[in-house]
């Protein structure tokens, strides 16, 4: 089991980065791409110029656009696709997997209409039970350059962690384990909204105090939503909570942060999205979370503010003013486990 081949499904910047880590760890890695041209490019040039420019992939990473080949060649699969595409890919994958497969997704989003978590979608579309989620402060580019960071593998199955740890953990990438799948998924999806809000604040010229306020209260909203869905509150103090929020809110590399920044500078959502090659998950997640919170009666002021800017044409200035006008109270509304 210690040298098992790993499949990575999705060759965006994060999928390509994970393939690189696996390759450097000596694992034979099958990297699935949707487009045959990209398969050819990676296999011929060892590079994925659009999504991970300037980074060379090790020779044991083989690109393919054949899902059947990936699932026949690897029982450990990392699914790294945008949230809106995950159901379709999972459905296609479902024709090729068995109960012996382990599927770990690294998708930080939530399904729009149904508000289903990605692991729930996987459960509905495949026969796989050994499901996990990978989430943490993982800016693709930094990891691709070998800069130290860590991540969380959350799964109810110990085996999922053991196999992921054996494949991914190394001198610059620390892999931690947790059982709280819900918390890891909510944290990963929600941080994109906080990051977007933090980008707006930065764009408006606010400094570190403001961003710290947004980040702290953002994590508080994250925990409020997460615990209402059954998450363990401690997860939000870990890699997939604070860890990820801090990385994306203070980084100029984060897409969501970038998007917030440009919104604050007066660009419209449509024009920004038109020239972004990659998906800013926060745009969709904020809508899904906003609607869900409304339905369930959960108070999430930062989410509301982001939603109004994105979908109701509210100006960023008004949104910040409204946010600052919400009443304060006890800092913690959720009680800590005793």
């Amino acid at each position: 089991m210690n040298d098992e081949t790993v499949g990575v499904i999705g060759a965006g910047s994060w999928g390509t980065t994970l393939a690189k880590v696996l390759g450097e760890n000596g694992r034979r890695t099958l990297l699935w791409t949707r487009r045959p041209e990209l398969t050819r490019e990676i296999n011929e040039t060892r590079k994925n110029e659009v999504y991970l420019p300037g980074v060379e992939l090790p020779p044991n990473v083989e690109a393919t656009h054949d899902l059947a080949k990936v699932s026949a060649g690897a029982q450990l699969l990392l699914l790294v696709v945008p949230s809106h595409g995950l159901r379709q890919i999972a459905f296609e994958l479902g024709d090729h997997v068995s109960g012996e497969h382990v599927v770990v997704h690294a998708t930080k989003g939530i399904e729009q209409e149904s508000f289903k978590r990605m692991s729930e979608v996987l459960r509905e579309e495949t026969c796989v039970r050994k499901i996990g989620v990978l989430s943490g402060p993982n800016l693709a580019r930094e990891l691709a350059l070998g800069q130290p960071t860590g991540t969380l593998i959350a799964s109810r199955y110990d085996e999922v962690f053991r196999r992921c740890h054996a494949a991914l953990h190394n001198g610059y990438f620390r892999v931690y384990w947790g059982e709280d799948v819900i918390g890891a998924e909510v944290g990963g999806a929600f941080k994109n909204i906080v990051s977007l809000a933090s980008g707006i604040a930065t764009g408006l010229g606010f400094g570190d105090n403001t961003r710290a306020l947004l980040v702290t209260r953002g994590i508080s909203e994250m925990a409020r939503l997460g615990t209402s869905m059954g998450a363990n509150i401690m997860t939000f103090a870990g890699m997939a909570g604070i860890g990820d929020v801090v990385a994306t809110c203070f980084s100029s590399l984060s897409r969501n942060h970038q998007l917030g920044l440009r919104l604050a500078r007066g660009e419209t959502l449509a024009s920004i999205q038109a020239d972004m090659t990659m998906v800013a998950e926060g745009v969709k997640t904020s809508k899904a979370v906003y609607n869900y919170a409304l339905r369930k009666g959960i108070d999430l002021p930062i989410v509301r503010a982001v939603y109004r800017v994105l979908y109701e044409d509210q100006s960023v200035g008004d949104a910040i003013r409204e946010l600052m006008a919400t009443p304060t109270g006890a800092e913690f509304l959720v009680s800590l486990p005793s």
Partner: protein
Amino acid sequence: MRPEHREGARDDAARRVAERHIAEAAELGEDYLEALLNDTLYHEQRRLERENPSDPKTRAELAFYANLRRELHRLHGFDLENALGRVTRRFADEIVGNFDERVYQLTTTVLPPALSVLLSAASPRQLLAGSVRQRLSEHIQIQGSIDHAKKLLDHGTLIVVPTHSSHLDSIVLGYAIFLMGMPPLLYGAGLNLFTNPLTSFFMHNLGAYRVDRKKSASLYKDVLKEYAVRSLELGYSNLFFPGGTRSRSGGLEQKLKKGLLGTGISAYVNNLKTGRAKPNLYVVPCTISYKLVLEAETLIDDYLKEVGKSRYIIEDDEFSKPRRVLKFLSNVISLDSRIVITFSAPLDIVGNRVDSEGRSIDARGRIVDPLSYVARDGQPVHDEQRDNQYTTELSDAIVSAFRRDNVVMSTHVVGHASMALLKLKNPELDLYRLLRTGGSLPSLEISELAEQVERVTTALRELKNGPRLGRELEQRDPRLIIDDALRYFGTYHTQPAAIRRGSRIVHQDRNLLLYYGNRLSPYELGRRLGSAYVQAA
């Protein structure tokens, strides 16, 4: 179980448990075995302190454990392992039932009339009339995936997992299984069923083995589970109540005990390893729905005494009083109260649906090889942590089946609606005070109650995933539904839950209203119906 299998299964269960612990001790050291035996000693001696010391069986057990205690600290190596083997063997001996195929043949033909006599409280002379048996079968309605379940017997072994409200469940279900033409189910019955005069005959002679729920030692539970595993491997279909005990609140089981449920996966892996033909195990959830529950008064009383800390074992309830049982059963017959048993779609050991050929089907309709769930590099292996999680997934699937195939009856709807109305009228009272005092008014306007009943039935009809509605709820007039419920409430219980006086309904036993209403708790009616309706559970 056939005698030749029974003794083998008993020996195998005792031996496997001992061997497993001995293997554990090989890793953890000999202290592990000594600690395990000490733990067993502790639990058994505590249990025996509360038993009657003049009972010869108790005396023998006390002597056995006193002896073990004396020698335990001196034992090492092979002697220690031997002592462990003696204890597991002792447990296995106690567990093994008396099932005999020939007796089953006899009992299924002779006993249903006898059961009918019990049920109808008729004179024994009616037994000879032969019509009684037919009458009984008229009162048990069996529906759902009957043929599907029967067909699966050609492909593997079944584990039937019903909801549990009453001690009558196992008898009623046992009889239903007979009516369906299926072989009997093996099941672990509490000792009280063996000592109760009404059921001891069935328990001794149908497929029951003994479960002593007073025995809390983990070693005992190990042997119990292993016996179930072994019986499944031998192809004996089993019955487990996955809730572990009768529902105290009246609610449907929402959390299941994983211990016995997990035996399916262990048996499956063992079957694969030994290359047994038809290795598959199938889980068949099933709901048993009563308009009135024999032990309702005791159960809800126990639930309310200390929510969450219910007595696990109740020995002095209605079931232990033959006259109550007879009264209950004669009401079942005379009121034409059907006991409805609904078999849900069968599942595999990880909770996938199964088709009538016994193949596992994933959520998108693809065929899945169940071996793949327990395989490592193609070979079947046990993995405790993995299998516990599979059992959790299976348990989730069973809970949704219960929710879907629960049959809601007039007493449940009227109980729920009455409690909601009472809460609405008395917002200042907490549940306990409301139950005790009944609030400001001793009765409810029938038109108001009818409105609530209408709301409940409409909401239930609109739900996508169950429940099923009882026959009397097919009619749309809520007043007729109320009348139907009142007819039942007025007949069996010590005091009617509610009675009609003119245009008002007097709520007399609110605990019972709560109990029957709780059957609807999984459907979150309070949340669905909003502020005009208060969650009764």
